[in-house]
């Protein structure tokens, strides 16, 4: 129970941090922290040696992103969509937080999951991922949003499915998404390397 509280705090801080950060270093830091939270919940259901794969793959994703970034503080493109303010993002995050909290017990009952905190963490990540997808047009941020959404799904899916093959394929999808993000940012260089 205490561990659940610690991990939900990790996920909560990572989600809020990710919504507010503009610098890619911070964003990737929060993404890494988020994977730590995901691992925390998954290891309560799956064997440790399988659960740790989620953490390692998540960290590889963050490292791959970090090595592909140019020496600028923000992600490659400036945001054009409205609104961009931190206050709006904070309020929207709070809204997602409250909504997911209110539906978590019902969802837990429906899915037959005993750990309500785990369900909340999952719904929160999916909600934050969707929110980010809705308010950004930057390819890199969109990829991070998709990774967040999939992370949320991975927690809830871990409760109902413990297949190693599914876990492996989800890892492959996470790594694939990061490669796609890197490719989208560096197409010019990768396609005209000669």
């Amino acid at each position, binding site marked *: 129970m205490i561990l659940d509280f610690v991990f939900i705090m990790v996920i909560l801080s990572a989600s809020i941090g990710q919504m507010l950060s503009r610098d890619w270093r911070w964003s990737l830091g929060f993404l890494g922290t988020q994977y730590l939270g995901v691992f925390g919940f998954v290891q309560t259901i799956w064997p440790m040696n399988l659960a740790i794969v989620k953490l390692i793959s998540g960290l590889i994703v963050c490292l791959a992103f970090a090595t592909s970034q140019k020496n600028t503080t923000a992600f*490659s*493109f400036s945001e054009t969509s409205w609104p961009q303010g931190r206050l709006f993002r904070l309020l929207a995050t709070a809204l997602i937080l409250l909504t997911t909290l209110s539906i978590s017990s019902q969802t837990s009952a*429906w899915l037959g999951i005993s750990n309500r905190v785990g369900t909340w963490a999952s719904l929160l990540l999916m909600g934050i991922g969707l929110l980010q*997808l809705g308010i950004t*047009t930057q*390819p890199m941020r*969109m990829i991070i949003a*998709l990774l967040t*959404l*999939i992370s949320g*799904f991975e927690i809830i*899916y871990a409760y*109902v*499915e413990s297949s*190693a*093959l*599914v876990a492996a*394929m*989800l890892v*492959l*999808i996470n790594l*694939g*998404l990061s*490669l*796609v993000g890197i*490719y*989208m940012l560096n*197409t*010019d260089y990768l*396609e*005209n390397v000669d």
Partner: protein
Amino acid sequence: MSASIIWIFIPFVLGFILWLLPYKRLVIGLGIAISVILALTAWMLPIETPLNIGNWSIKISSTMTILGRHLILTPTDQPLLIFLYLSLVFWFISSSIAGDNNKLIPSGLLIISLLISALAVEPFLYAALLIEITVLVSVPLLKRSNIPRGRGLMRFLVFQTLAMPFILFSGWILTGITAGPEETTLIRQAAIFLGLGFVFLLAIFPFNTWIPLLTEEAHPSSAAFILWIFPTIGLLFGLYFLDTYSWIRESNYLPIFLRSSGLLMIVTGGIWAGFQKDLKRIFAYAMIMETGYSLLSLSIQGTRGIDLFFGLLIPRILALLLWALALSVILSKTSSAQFSMAKGLGRKYPFSATAIILSHLSMTGVPLLAGFPIHQALWERLGIISLSGAIWFAIGTIGLLMCGIRSLAVLVAPSNERFMIKESWPQRIFLSLGILMLILFGILPQWITSLTIRFPLMFSHLGR
């Protein structure tokens, strides 16, 4: 030897190797040769029947087991394998004639092999994961370096990714239902998740906004290939669900849902197309309508609906190939596909202009073209089931037809330039052959029937 090794693993590995080869001509030649060989083997090699060559005896087994999961390709899947690999041959020829940057060849092999594995995998909820991996593999094919943001590509990625959790979750719920079909609450929940998954996967209205954006951004051949393969495999994946779960197949709501969503796509696609001023976007809306026609055909119960569904495949790929090639030829010399830029291009590109117009009209279902017999049959069946549905079908079709007439007016508009053919000989020959096929299939529709007659045998319940 397993069938999966021949038609999944070998093309996957070869696709990967072709990606690494720097020689354009070699890649084109090898890509076409590999696809021809794979189509021929699918046609000639029997699965699960011993084949004696001299003292050797080979038997291709249908099942391959990987980590406790099975990849199953049975003899009834062979017509589909022939169709997919033969289509790939034409895509590759078309792409090389169009002067594409030959990314389509390695990507095409990778995409086809992954999507065949998605259809072959058991339990088939793994297909959602394989389709998602295919989406990721297709990004390099669609990304162009001169379009940094790629809004259409990002939406494609997002919507296709959103499909995966819904389908995986519905798969989990469905296993519970198999144990006790009387659980109506579970059935409702599974249906909602499954429906949402397929709405994203098949780009059903309103989640189809990425299609026009993607056709604007990507190379016409690449965009057309993706817009052909993903809905085709997505629909076949949906058919496997229908075939497996009798409660979905026999649900009273299923035909209504399929008919409504199909008509919605036809009507919105047709009306939107009517207002477009860009040849690429028109192409996108025609493709949206094609998915609508497929959904509509599936709403017709019994074997008739399935026959119509498979009957649409060949006229569609023919029109799509021609349209994409013609657009690629025109766009290789002009900067934009806007009507303002395309005015009078029929004088310089008469073969391409003819191909665009005839493909467009075939997709509309104009008589004497490949699309007509099947569209007419579909419309007739729809009229028997729902008169209002048939009227909406007509409205959508009129929208696309009007758009075709506008395109024709633009392409043959008077201009100061002299009549001069700028297409190369291979382009002229390929386009002419395509146009001829479009007309021949329109006059002799029984040819299409003879080609697709074995397709429904893939399913144990639907096609029987």
